[in-house]
């Protein structure tokens, strides 16, 4: 009798069946995984989202205190009710709406970020974010449409500051600039500025115009005179990419131009000052393309 020795041969049908089963199971796992993740996200953020909705509904209302009461302790530490009101006033009447669940992020360390769109009266829509923190219920920690830079707790919007506020910026600047012009001491003016902008202002276009008017005008009473302000406007800068690259215009919400004059004798004293948003303040910045100017006289060529 002959004994044959034979190794098992691969069963290809069985292999194909197993491969098919493996692929189906993998696909099923992926679908179940994403569905579970979605449910998890929905459940984790539902309370924060409803609190955010409640806050956003009160924003357009007449009672800012009601909105302010829905904010976190850190929010209230960083932004007092009057600044909160001025930020809301600056953006005017807007329609806030949160994005759907799939645009939410998971809560992390008791905080969650929600995104939304805000629509202006003219119909323009732009994005905003609202960060909610859990402190005895979900409270608003940050609500902003400022998407760049570090923004702390509070409500911060890119709306144009009110005219009285801009007037105050100008008066504060001139309170230091006027005496500096009288004493021909630009350094004294620069030293009065916050450290973050000293270098920019020291080497700016303001220095050139400063030198031109020194000794030509008496600004000793400037603090007692009320400046006449043109409507504040954004200082827009358009920059284009090289070799036919697309152009973009920046400055809305970040660069504020304050122009006007002081009605002084014998000739009015004109100013063009540029303020840059440096959270949470507006600071004078005349560097690079931001040309600030001071001049005396009236009519063309002043």
């Amino acid at each position, binding site marked *: 009798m002959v*004994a044959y020795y034979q190794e098992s041969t691969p069963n290809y049908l069985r292999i194909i069946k197993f491969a098919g089963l493996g692929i189906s199971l993998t696909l099923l796992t992926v679908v179940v995984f994403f569905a579970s993740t979605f449910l998890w996200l929905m459940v984790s953020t539902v309370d924060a989202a409803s609190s955010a909705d409640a806050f956003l509904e009160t924003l357009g209302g007449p009672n800012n205190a009601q909105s302010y009461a829905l904010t976190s302790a850190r929010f209230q530490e960083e932004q007092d009710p009057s600044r909160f009101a001025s930020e809301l006033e600056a953006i005017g009447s807007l329609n806030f709406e949160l994005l759907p669940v799939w645009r939410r992020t998971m809560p992390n360390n008791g905080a969650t970020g929600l*995104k939304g769109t805000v629509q202006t009266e003219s119909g323009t829509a732009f994005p905003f974010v609202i960060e909610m923190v859990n402190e005895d219920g979900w409270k608003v920690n940050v609500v902003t449409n400022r998407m760049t830079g570090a923004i702390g707790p509070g409500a911060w919007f890119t709306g144009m500051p009110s005219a009285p506020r801009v007037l105050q910026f100008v008066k504060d600047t001139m309170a230091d600039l006027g005496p500096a012009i009288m004493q021909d001491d630009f350094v004294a003016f620069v030293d009065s500025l916050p450290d973050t902008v000293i270098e920019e202002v020291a080497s700016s276009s303001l220095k050139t115009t400063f030198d031109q008017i020194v000794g030509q005008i008496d600004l000793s009473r400037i603090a007692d005179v009320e400046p006449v302000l043109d409507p504040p406007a954004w200082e827009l800068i358009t920059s284009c990419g090289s070799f036919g690259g697309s152009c973009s215009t920046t400055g809305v919400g970040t660069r504020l131009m304050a122009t006007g004059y002081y009605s002084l004798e014998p000739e009015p004293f004109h100013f063009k000052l540029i303020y840059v948003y440096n959270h949470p303040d507006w600071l004078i910045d005349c560097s690079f393309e931001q040309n600030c100017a001071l001049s005396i006289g009236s009519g063309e060529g002043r």
Partner: protein
Amino acid sequence: MATIASAQTTTQSLGPEGVDWERVHFTASLAIFGAIVGASTILINLLSRAIPPQVPEHLPFSQSLYFGGLSGLVSVLVVVPAAWFIYGGRPTFSSYRDRGPRSLVRWLGFGSMYGGIHMLLLGGLFLPQANLWFSFINGQVDFLQMLYTASDNLFTAPYLSITVGLQLLFTSMLSMLVFGLGASLIDRINASEDPKTALIGAWTASIMLSIVLIAFLMLAPEETISSIGNLAQ
């Protein structure tokens, strides 16, 4: 008068039937060891990424578990089918045992294949997806971004397997060697003529080697592990 009786066909077993426990033992032993080698590979790699003056430091336990578990899982995915195939099916018509051990050189070859495939799979698919998931649960990306990026990662996996996988090159080379040597030892013990040794020896060897690797990772100075990962000093 003679009649032809209708012949009755019967199925008779030509060898042992049922679950091939020998093969299962071997595969499971290698899978355990492979998982620990895989987990060590990524942890050593992450430590070796510290560039002076940065001091190499172990990740927090939860992150070590996360990335180590992921790399271990990839190893299991590579090792299980490979070990099953390498061990081979049960011979029929024979009770002769011809299932190892394989030579050290062959195991070093298998180790190289393991290290290479593990590196490409981990770098190309699993690590980018794990990083994405990590960002998601830490609230850095929203659900839709996660979906988009996950599908993007899937389609760019061949590219990522080179760019991200190459970052694991040196540690993967080490894992090739360690896995090859360890697997060879497990195979030799598993092929022992002594039935008891053959039964529990492979498990024991696998677990012991894994414990040694884990102990080394936990107890050795971080600078040493980091320099090993860089194949330097």
